[in-house]
């Protein structure tokens, strides 16, 4: 039986070389994400902004969005957002916190119910008061921060510290880009989105750990390879698995987006984006970070370093060229490259 292979076999992509592109690129994207967050902001759902959401179904089969929109004016609810979705009979009303504290929120719902209760079935009513929403913001933020710290701790315990830091930087990168995603798409950001973010954090770490695990293994096995070369080799080795897993999870998520219904759609969309970003960052952000943080494949780098003394001027002229030439080396341990001179130097610079 001929089996499907999505990932090519025995790849030898020089991933480490891309870090000079991927770092500025990611930095740029992260900056955009921050800028979006600051200037465009998030479409905070009522969990965090407070307010009311009412999901209506018209008893006569067609929701009159225009009429519903008019409610905001008529009932003095302030800005009211009306959205139709899927079924023409369904519509969602959303309005912000009413002045006058918790009691006023309930009174507002009551006014809506009196007005539309005869023509519409109120399928879902959610009211979050001002204090509760503040607490949800706090616990959400705390959750994200705590989980990153906890994972940092675990990775520190299981791997070298560079791995932990690399993984956390990659995770933060994913986090920022996910926030940017929520901002640019204006998908509603609520407690379920926090769940999505934490799951993305989990997935991103999962990806990172798989790559790091192989790097650690290869570090022991191929002591004489240069660091960058060894990392490239490791990433290439796990590449089929990375692609395979990302595709499978993506299939599950596509099913959620298509059939899971309105409530979890924003969760699923964010997850899809998160899978992309997490896969990218485990390869292009976390792994090169090891080099920047001074992780060294002792003997391989020493072999290179011994040569370094001899070609000192070439190194001062161009601090980075050595790395690239190292990547061009075949992964044989017997012939330390002549031009690998700057390799061990590089981490210290970074």
């Amino acid at each position, binding site marked *: 039986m001929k089996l499907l292979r999505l990932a090519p076999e025995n790849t030898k992509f020089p991933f480490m070389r891309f870090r000079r592109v991927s770092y500025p690129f990611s930095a740029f994207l992260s900056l955009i994400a921050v800028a979006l967050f600051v200037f465009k902001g998030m479409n905070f759902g009522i969990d965090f902004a407070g307010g009311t959401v009412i999901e209506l179904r018209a008893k006569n089969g067609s929701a009159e969005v225009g009429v519903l929109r008019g409610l905001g004016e008529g009932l003095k609810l302030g800005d009211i957002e009306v959205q139709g979705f899927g079924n023409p009979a369904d519509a969602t009303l959303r309005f912000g916190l009413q002045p006058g504290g918790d009691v006023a929120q309930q009174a507002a719902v009551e006014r809506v119910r009196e007005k539309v209760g005869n023509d519409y079935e109120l399928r879902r009513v959610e009211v979050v008061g001002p204090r509760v929403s503040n607490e949800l913001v706090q616990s959400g933020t705390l959750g994200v921060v705590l989980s990153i710290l906890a994972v940092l701790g675990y990775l520190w315990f299981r791997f070298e510290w560079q791995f932990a830091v690399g993984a956390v930087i990659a995770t933060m990168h994913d986090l920022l880009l996910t926030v940017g995603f929520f901002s640019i798409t204006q998908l509603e950001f609520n407690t379920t989105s926090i769940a999505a973010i934490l799951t993305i954090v989990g997935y991103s770490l*999962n990806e990172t750990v798989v790559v790091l695990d192989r790097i650690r293994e290869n570090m022991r096995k191929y002591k004489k390879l240069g660091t960058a070369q060894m990392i490239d080799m490791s990433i290439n080795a796990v590449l089929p698995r990375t692609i395979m897993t990302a595709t499978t999870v993506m299939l599950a998520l596509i099913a959620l987006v298509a*059939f899971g219904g309105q409530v979890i759609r924003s969760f699923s969309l964010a997850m899809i984006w998160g899978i992309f970003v997490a896969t990218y960052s485990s390869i292009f952000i976390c792994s090169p970070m090891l080099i920047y943080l001074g992780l060294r494949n002792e003997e391989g780098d020493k072999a290179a370093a011994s040569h370094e003394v001899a070609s000192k001027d070439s190194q001062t002229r161009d601090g980075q060229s050595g790395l690239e030439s190292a990547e061009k080396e075949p992964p044989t341990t017997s012939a330390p490259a002549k031009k690998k001179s700057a390799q061990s130097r590089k981490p210290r610079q970074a």
Partner: protein
Amino acid sequence: MLRFSTWKFIAIVAMTLAAILVVAPSMMTPAHYEALKERLPAWLTPPTIVLGLDLQGGSHVMLEVDKADILTTQVKNLREDVRRILREEKVAITGGIGATPRGVQLRVADAADRERILPKLRLLRNGFSARAGGGDSPLDVEETPDGLIRLTVTDAGLVEKTRRAVDQSIEVIRRRVDALGTREPSIQREGDDRIIVQVPGLQDPEQLKTILGQTAKLEFRLVAEAGQNPADSEELEQQDGTGKLPIEKQVMVQGEDLTDAQPGFDQQRGGEPVVNFRFNIRGAQRFGEVTSKNVDRLFAIVLDNKVISAPRILTPITGGSGQISGRFTVEEANNLSILLRAGALPAKLNIVEERTVGPGLGQDSIDAGKRAAYVGAGLVVVYMLITYGVFGVFANLALFVHIAFIFAGLVLLGSTLTLPGIAGIVLTIGMAVDSNVLIYERIREENHAGRTILASLDAGFKRAFATIVDSNVTMFVAAAILYFLGTGPVRGFAVSLALGILTTIITAYTMTQMMIAIWYHYARPTRLPI
């Protein structure tokens, strides 16, 4: 690799069967389940999966004790107490009892008088705290040299009162919600000043809010007549909106003296809905006394400081029962009788969060979740099959058991399945095969590196194990934190995710290993089929 111990095999098969057995009742149609339940003895009633409010419909309401209301009541009581002490000790004060933001103050000019009443005033703190002496003082008594005494309710005192109010409120709310006749309501305290009420499967969520939102303090008070001291009465709003009535401040009979209240109809008024009530002995006596002495006066029935009605006392009522009429609808009369039976709340409760899902939407969400799960699982199964062939079959079998384990875990833990929970399960379907993928890819790699099939299989499983553990632990940490910080549906997601991660190790690793070992034993392959 080949020598897969028999006990391990038995353990895995037994666990799988047990999981299927645990899950089976939840998968049955309600009719089949009921039939099964009847055949089994009562102690063997099979548990089924608990659906979250977002799936079965229902209301989640978070109530918060109104601290301002508690403070007002406290200050009011304090003022009464101080007045009583002054009267008992016959102490004269200058300028009356003044108000402060959180208490009262009074000026006692005579030093000897001050010495006499101060210990008595200090004793008032005992009325605040159940745990006398412990912790911060609930009541501050300050004295200035010029004879001013200031009594202030402290934060500690307010917190203590709030807690007690929450405890009492929970009891009252339980009685009220039980009266609605719903199944399995959950009423829990949350923190110092909040109560979470969760009632599944409500057809009319509005009624729940109506009966939760009222203090239901019922008082019988006389309507003030012309010529009475205005300080002894207050103007209260009438329920029907026809303006205010002057009502005496003195409460003649209180709602707590009621033993029963039932909705009914008054035949004399053309079948108008009313509430019939019955007093206990003390209430009946008091009611008899008051009505005897005040024939021809208006007797107001006051609920939460609103006058429901103020009928004229025609004859003394000594039977201990009566009727409240206030142009009610049938529903209002019903609600009021529930409230009166359950008793008044000790303080005002505000709704600070409400999440209500109607039964129709719940069913739609279940359907959507099911559809997504079937399609997601189907896609993954096919994908594994076309990528890994016979090994894909093993992975899919493991995946099936994995899902059975998750559901069995949910049933056994009694944790609720929410819509985000379903999303979590669909997600773990994707994640679970990750372990299989890790192993299979490793096996291929080892095989390509020139190892024999058996050695590749062995190395593949061995090497992939550390990676599987590491990656799952990190994911589990995220799920655990989500569980502890999340609320409601998000918690459901965390539980599904965490269960999924735990069961992955058993199914995707051990089970697959077993299946491949057996396969190898019988198939004796000459080349790796992946």
